[in-house]
């Protein structure tokens, strides 16, 4: 019961989506839709929808990043002002709100951006090693469908891809 990978390259999105739609409908033994990975030179949300719900958690990172950026920023600044013995300034309180707000705002953005990007790297699993079934033409103009399935299901899938005019089908053994 070993699983292996297979990459099929398509000329355009229509063919690729047709192939996925059929895969989805086929209910093959030893194959799960969540094991399908679409590789494309551009983003294409419509096909991604076909692949089922694949949640993105970046916003969560953003929320926490921004909140903590702002909160810690304000606390950091105000407590630094409160402790810095030489801080008294004529005309202004020792902890002045408007300037601190400006800085809090900047730190809010700083936290937001940094943590969002962190979330992106985590969510997109970057940096990563390229999958060995990667094909450079994916970055050019072709659409690839990478599947992982039981060896038993492979021939059927291969047939399905061929039916949808896959330009090339590469298996793990280099077939």
């Amino acid at each position, binding site marked *: 019961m070993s699983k292996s990978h297979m990459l099929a390259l398509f000329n355009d999105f229509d063919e690729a989506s047709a192939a996925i739609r059929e895969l989805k409908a086929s209910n093959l033994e030893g194959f799960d839709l969540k094991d399908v990975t679409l590789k494309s030179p551009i983003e294409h949300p419509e096909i991604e929808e076909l692949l089922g719900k694949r949640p993105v958690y970046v916003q969560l990172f953003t929320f926490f990043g921004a909140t903590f950026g702002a909160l810690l920023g304000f*606390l950091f600044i*105000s*407590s*630094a*002002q*409160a*402790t*810095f013995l*030489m*801080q*008294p*300034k*004529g*005309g*202004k*309180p*020792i*902890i002045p709100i408007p300037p601190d707000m400006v800085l809090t705002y900047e730190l809010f953005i700083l936290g937001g951006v940094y943590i969002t990007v962190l979330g992106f790297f985590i969510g997109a699993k970057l940096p990563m090693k390229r999958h060995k079934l990667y094909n450079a033409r994916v970055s050019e103009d072709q659409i690839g469908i990478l599947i992982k399935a039981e060896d038993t299901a492979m021939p059927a899938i291969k047939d399905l891809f061929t039916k949808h005019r896959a330009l090339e089908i590469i298996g793990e053994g280099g077939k």
Partner: protein
Amino acid sequence: MSITNLLNNWSFYRNKRPYRGQYDLNRQYGEYKWAMAVDLDICTGCNACTTACYAENNLPVVGKHRFEHGQVMHWIRIERYWDEKMGEFPEQGTSFLPMMCQQCEAAPCETVCPVAATSHTNDGLNSQNYHRCIGSRYCSANCPFKVRYFNWWNYPSTAWPAPLEDQLNPDVTVRTKGVMEKCTFCVQRLSEAKSRARTEYRLVRDGEVLPACAQACPTGAISFGNIVDPESKIAKMWKNQQVDLYKDMQEKDNTVRGYRILEDLRPFPSVMYMERVRDAEA
């Protein structure tokens, strides 16, 4: 650095300066508020104060070329203004104005310094810490009186050819290139006097310490003292002239001479000037 500290003292940290009662004899820090009064009627414009300041505070002599480029370092300067309504001749003489750092209570320079090199002392002075200064010159840009002087050149190596450097006052730093400096009310004298007084369990006596300019001034046009002490001459003068340290608009009789310069910008200066008097019938 703690949140408890923040919460406990929040209202203190939120006090807007200057606030009434900021200087108070009963508080240990706030026993002094140094202030000055300059009587423009008896200032003769003789520049003794300027030279005294050069001697006391290690001010470099910049030379003709640099003076021409506006890089002179006099902490106190005597300005001379002709009357605007002057006819062919200045028949009422001229106006002299000794201008030094006004040690503003709400100093515009303090808030803008990025590194807190200039801040307020407990004695109400506007301190300038040369060693902290990185030379952004923002304080000078924001000073309405333009009494902050920047070291455009490396004066320590040029302004005191040997043995002239032997005259330098060891109590005052010789400022290197790239830092801002300004009148300090001769803080080295003040802290010496304060230290002496504390050892003797007392406050600094009125007249015990004077800045170099006030000490030199032949006519005594410059008065100096601790305004917190109600018995001091300076406090009496301010009161008599109806100038209130904490007010930005003075309500006073028109027979009274006291005023502070550029009060409309609300810097709350610590230097009170007394109007020049001219005998209109002369």
